Structure formats: structure tokens, C-alpha cells
């Protein structure tokens, strides 16, 4: 669709007129959309000529025809069915996005916490919206961010007022379930007030067998003394493309923990950029990816230590089987005034076949002199000595391999702070490693649609 962007431009023009007419967006958002589209039109989609996109083969998926739905909701299924995802059964307040559209009207939760559609937030909370929306994503460092800002359909807005410890975990399920191949732009905004705290679980799921492209941008602002735990679980079908940009800005004495668990997917890229803008802050950015078949998972992280006395910790682990490919690119930037910074980074991979491929790039850029930084990257196989040791105790080879892989993955899972989520993810990882977890297998829709019955499996005979 994207060989030249004329089609997309026409589409945007039509889309833009529509907004001007029906006044669902405020003038602010319209001017952002317009400027962003100009940026996109100039930049285009990222190509392999851009260093950070060198190994991400976007062209293959961009060449496919997509439907871009900019106004009407694609309601094709009963709402009930979309909740039947693998990550349910958690004791959370559950919200959902279906094909890029927020599914519920606004809800004022206890303690003054707000969860609603980003479009609704623009109308109802204009002060918050204008203060925070597109503040970080306006860097337009690639065309996809610009495109998202121009034509985002919808997304979620979460606000936790000052001094409120949100005692319920908020879970948002972002589901694709369409009858054609769709291109979806979702845009989310999360604001954690002063001395407030929030645990957010975001699940990317798909029930569609037609393929999809989700271009997601989220912005997270954590005000002084605030705390944010953000868990992302991705269990997508193999025709699904998900490109995510997460922008995080932290004020003084804040603490964030981001953890992305990728179970299945076609082409997945998670780009997380954290700006430590206030002293005494800490950021964890972590991830686990389990990749097999022809799947591709790309994690990009940038931590910007803009001020002194902050700490950060990146930990990413992956198990890559068959023809799977994984990329990790971790950037630590320590600016000149960011003295007494401590920043750590680690990426460990297990490569199970010769045809699996793993690229890992640590990148440290340090301008301050009183700094503790470390990075480490490994690509290895399962430890043969450990396997023999375990088998000598009576454990069969399959289970010994499973225990080793599970314990490898466990070092990321152990950092999850909420016990219910930790247990659930442990169980899902264990099932994924045993080949028992396919994309949303419990959903009735999959059973009715033979095309989407998937048996993603790590082949035990090879590992």
C-alpha cells in the first residue's frame, strides 16, 4: 500500500475533513494531526537505510494491502468474546480496545482515578490533555510516530490524581478481530500524579487470521514521588505486526518498572524511551521474548539520564528457536550533568537452532564523569553440564531442558511485583515453552475459524 503515500494522503485528507465537520477532536488535536501528517509525508515509513531499522523488515508487511478504518468501528463480534484472552482471570479492572477503538464509556473508579477513551479525555479533561498529549511523541524520530499522531483512531487515557495509590490493577486488552487485514493506530496517555501509584497491565491480543498492523504510541508521565508498574503481554498471531513506541518521563523521586513479555507474534517491535528528568528516580525496563517459527521480535530501549542521582536497569532475555529472529538494542545516555548515575544493562539469549538469529547491540553514551555503568550481552546454548547433572538425578532430558529454560526466563519474571500477575505469567511461560500456548487458544472464535488454529511450539527434540 505504501509504495508512495498518495493513497494514504487522500485517505488522510478525507479523514481530516471529517473531523473538521463533526468536531470530535479539539482544535489542539487537529493542529497536531495536521502537522504530524506533514511530518509523516516528508519522512515516510522507516526503511532499512535507517540504522535503527536496518534489520527490521517492515517493507514486507507494508507491501500488503490494508484497510485503514478511520471513523466507523469495525464491530464484528460479540463483545463478550474479546475478553476470552489468555491473560484473563486476573483480579483487575478490565478495559478493552477493539480494532483500535475504546470499548467502554468513561468510568470514574474509586479514589478519583479516571480510565476512558483518549478522545473522551480530550473533550472532558482538556487541561490534562493539552498539558501532556504529544509532549514526548512530538519528537517524530520516525515516520510511524508521526503517522500515529496524525491518524490515531482511539486509545486509552488513565489518570491517577496526586497522592492516590490506585489499589486495583488496571488491565487493558488491545484486541484485533477483523474480517479483513487492517492497519490500526492506537494512542494512549497515562498520567500518574504526585506521590501517586499505578499498576497497569496491557495485553496485545489478536483473534484475526487476516493479518493486522498495529502502530501504537503511548506516553507515560510520572510526577514527583510517583510510581508506575507497567506490564505488557503480547500474544499475537503470526500474521500480526505490532510496532510500539512507549515514551516515559519521570520527575523527581519516581520509580517505574516496565516489563514486556512477548509470547507469540509475527513482526513485533517494542521501542521504549525513558527520560529521567528529576533527581532520585529509578527506571527498570525489562523484557522476555519467546520466539520460534518465522517470528520476529525487536526490542529497542533508550534511557536518558538527563539529571544527576538516578538509576536504571535494563534486563532482557530471550529464547529463540527454529527460524525465529530477535533483536535487542539498548541505549544508555548519560548527560553531562547526570553525575552519580548508575545504569545497568543486560541482554541474554538462548539460541536453540543454527537457523535462529539474534542481534544484540549495547550502546553507552556517557558525558558525565562520576558514573557507574555496565552492560553485558550473551548468546548461548543450554548448558550441557547442567543437563547431565539434572539427568543424573533422574530427570528426563525434556524436563531438564524445560527446567533450564524456565529458570532462564524466571530471572525476568522474578522482577514482577504483583504476585497474581507473576504467577499467571510464570504459568503462561511454562505453557509456552511446552508448546501448549497458542495465540488466544481459549477463544471460541479460533475454533470456528480453521485458518487461525495455531500450534506454536518449541520443538523439544531440537533443544
Amino acid at each position, binding site marked *: 500500500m505504501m509504495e508512495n503515500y498518495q493513497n494514504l494522503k487522500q485517505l488522510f485528507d478525507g479523514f481530516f475533513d471529517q473531523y473538521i465537520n463533526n468536531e470530535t477532536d479539539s482544535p489542539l488535536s487537529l493542529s497536531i494531526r495536521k502537522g504530524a501528517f506533514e511530518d509523516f509525508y516528508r519522512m515516510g515509513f522507516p526503511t532499512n537505510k535507517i540504522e535503527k531499522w536496518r534489520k527490521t523488515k517492515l517493507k514486507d508487511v507494508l507491501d500488503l494491502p490494508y484497510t485503514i478504518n478511520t471513523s466507523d468501528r469495525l464491530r464484528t463480534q460479540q463483545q463478550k468474546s474479546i475478553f476470552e484472552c489468555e491473560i484473563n482471570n486476573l483480579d483487575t479492572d478490565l478495559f478493552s480496545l477493539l480494532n483500535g477503538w475504546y470499548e467502554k464509556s468513561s468510568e470514574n473508579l474509586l479514589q478519583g482515578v479516571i480510565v476512558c477513551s483518549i478522545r473522551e479525555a480530550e473533550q472532558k479533561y482538556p487541561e490534562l490533555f493539552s498539558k501532556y498529549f504529544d509532549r514526548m511523541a512530538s519528537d517524530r524520530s520516525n515516520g510511524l510516530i508521526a503517522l500515529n499522531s496524525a491518524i490515531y483512531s482511539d486509545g486509552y487515557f488513565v489518570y491517577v490524581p496526586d497522592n492516590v495509590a490506585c489499589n486495583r490493577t488496571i488491565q487493558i486488552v488491545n484486541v484485533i478481530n477483523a474480517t479483513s487485514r487492517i492497519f490500526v493506530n492506537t494512542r494512549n496517555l497515562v498520567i500518574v500524579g504526585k506521590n501517586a501509584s499505578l499498576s497497569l497491565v496491557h495485553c496485545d491480543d489478536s483473534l484475526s487470521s487476516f493479518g493486522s498492523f498495529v502502530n501504537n504510541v503511548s506516553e507515560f508521565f510520572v510526577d514527583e514521588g510517583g510510581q508506575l508498574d507497567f506490564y505488557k503481554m503480547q500474544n499475537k498471531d503470526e500474521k500480526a505486526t505490532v510496532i510500539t513506541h512507549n515514551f516515559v518521563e519521570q520527575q523527581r523521586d519516581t520509580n517505574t518498572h516496565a516489563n514486556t513479555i512477548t509470547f507469540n507474534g509475527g513482526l513485533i517491535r517494542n521501542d521504549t524511551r525513558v527520560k529521567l528528568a528529576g533527581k532520585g528516580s529509578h527506571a527498570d525496563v525489562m523484557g522476555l521474548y519467546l520466539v520460534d517459527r518465522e517470528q520476529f521480535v525487536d526490542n529497542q530501549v533508550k534511557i536518558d539520564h538527563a539529571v544527576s542521582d538516578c538509576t536504571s536497569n535494563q534486563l532482557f532475555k530471550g529464547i529463540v528457536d527454529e527460524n525465529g529472529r530477535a533483536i535487542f538494542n539498548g541505549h544508555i545516555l548519560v548527560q553531562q550533568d547526570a553525575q552519580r548515575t548508575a545504569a545497568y544493562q543486560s541482554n541474554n539469549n538462548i539460541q536453540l537452532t543454527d537457523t535462529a538469529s539474534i542481534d544484540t547491540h549495547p550502546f553507552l553514551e556517557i558525558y558525565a564523569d562520576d558514573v557507574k555503568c555496565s552492560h553485558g550481552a550473551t548468546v548461548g546454548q543450554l548448558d550441557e553440564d547442567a543437563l547431565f547433572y*539434572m*539427568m543424573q*538425578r533422574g*530427570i528426563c532430558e525434556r*524436563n531438564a531442558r524445560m527446567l533450564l529454560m524456565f*529458570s532462564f526466563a524466571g530471572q525476568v519474571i522474578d522482577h514482577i511485583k504483583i504476585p497474581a500477575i507473576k504467577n499467571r505469567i510464570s504459568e503462561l511461560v511454562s505453557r509456552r515453552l511446552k508448546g501448549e500456548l497458542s495465540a488466544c487458544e481459549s477463544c471460541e472464535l479460533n475454533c470456528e475459524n480453521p485458518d487461525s488454529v495455531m500450534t506454536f511450539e518449541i520443538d523439544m527434540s531440537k533443544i
Partner: protein
Amino acid sequence: MLEIKDLHVSIQGKEILKGLNLSVKPGEVHAIMGPNGTGKSTLANVITGRDIYDNISGEIIYKGKNLMEMAIEDRAREGIFLSFQYPVEIPGVSITNFMRAAMDEIYLYRGKKPMSGGEFLKYFNEKKQFVEMTANLANRSVNEGFSGGEKKKNEIFQMAMLNPDLAILDETDSGLDIDALRIVANGVNKLRTPENATIVITHYQRLLDYIVPDFVHVLYGGKIVKTGGKELALELEDKGYEWIKDHADIQL
């Protein structure tokens, strides 16, 4: 219990064991001594099934079964236990989970119903006291960050848990101070019964003051060149391995 006949083993074209014979009966303790590089650890590896050797010939019969045809884990489930010279660190796997997994599989193999969680924990704690293991060791990952002594103690703890018929202790005394040595040896002695057997592989005589063998074999040049009672170990300690070289009727 164990009959080894004319065992030849080579690795990367080099013959390590050159016709070894050994017979172990229930209730016996056999010590295998010899200088470094004579194949003591190779013997332990071959009995337990480590698949790193090019060529193995000869016969190893264990409880009337041909051991060569059995998988590593099945040998373990049939009651063969190796206390490793260098116990392997397994980050992220707690000793509790490790032993649970092992015992469940062994019970299933033997047609028994695996222990319940409660039964297992009770059993686990009994054995922990049995080998004088400190409480916090059990919650840590297998061997991770353990001192040399802790690793060896952990081997004996696993031996107590799995209660093997044939235990092979490969250089269990190496890296142990005298207190740890006493605890480890005590554990082994307490586990002795008329039904089980122990093979102690050691370089030094020291361990044999604590675990008293019925037979001492000297392994040299890939063969057992001399067999005697416990006094042979003392003689060796006194005269050194050079004495064997001069004394033993060996054709290398």
C-alpha cells in the same frame, strides 16, 4: 550389584581405560585410588552414562541389566548416584524444586505414586537435618554461589534424598576443610546399609580415615593394577604412586 568386565574407553582417539575389571557387591565400600589422569573420573562418567566418549567396549552389568543400553536418567532411577567432583551451578532452579522434579520422576519410573507436597517437605527437612545442612541453603538456586564445602554437602544431601543403591563419590574430599570433611563423611556412613554399595574415588588417603573401605583398588594406566584392603591406602600414602609404578606388574 555391579560387574565391570574388560572395559575399554577412549576419547578423541586416546584410550583412557584399557581393560578395567571391577566387581561390587551390596554392602561393600570400594575405594578407587590413583594419580591424576589415570581415568578415575572417566570410570564414574561411563557408569553414569555421560555421552562424551568415542568408543566404549566391554561389559557393565548392574543388577543383572546391561547398563550400556540404559539412558542416563534411567540409570539414576535404577539407583545409581554420582556425587560430582565439580557440582554444576543451576541458576534459577531451587534445590527444593530440583529435588521435587527428580523424585517425582523416579517415583513414577518405579510405579509409585509421587509424594504429596506436605510429605515431600517433611522428607526434605528430615534429610536436611540428617546431613547437617543449614536452612538457608535449601532455598537457594542449586549450587549457585556455594562454597566448595557447601557444594559437596549439597551432593551428600541429594544422595540422602534419593537414597541410591550404588553411590559413586568422585573426589568428594577435594576442597573440604576438616570440619566439612567430617560432616560429609558422617553423612555417607549414616547412609550405608547392607543393601547398598559405595565407590569412593579419591586421590588422597585422608577421606578413607572417615569412610573406611572394604577394598582399595589402585587405578593406573587405565587398569586396576592392585587391589587390597584398607591398609593398601595407608601403604600408598606412605610410599607414593611411584611405588606402584615400580612395584605393580603392569605392561603399559
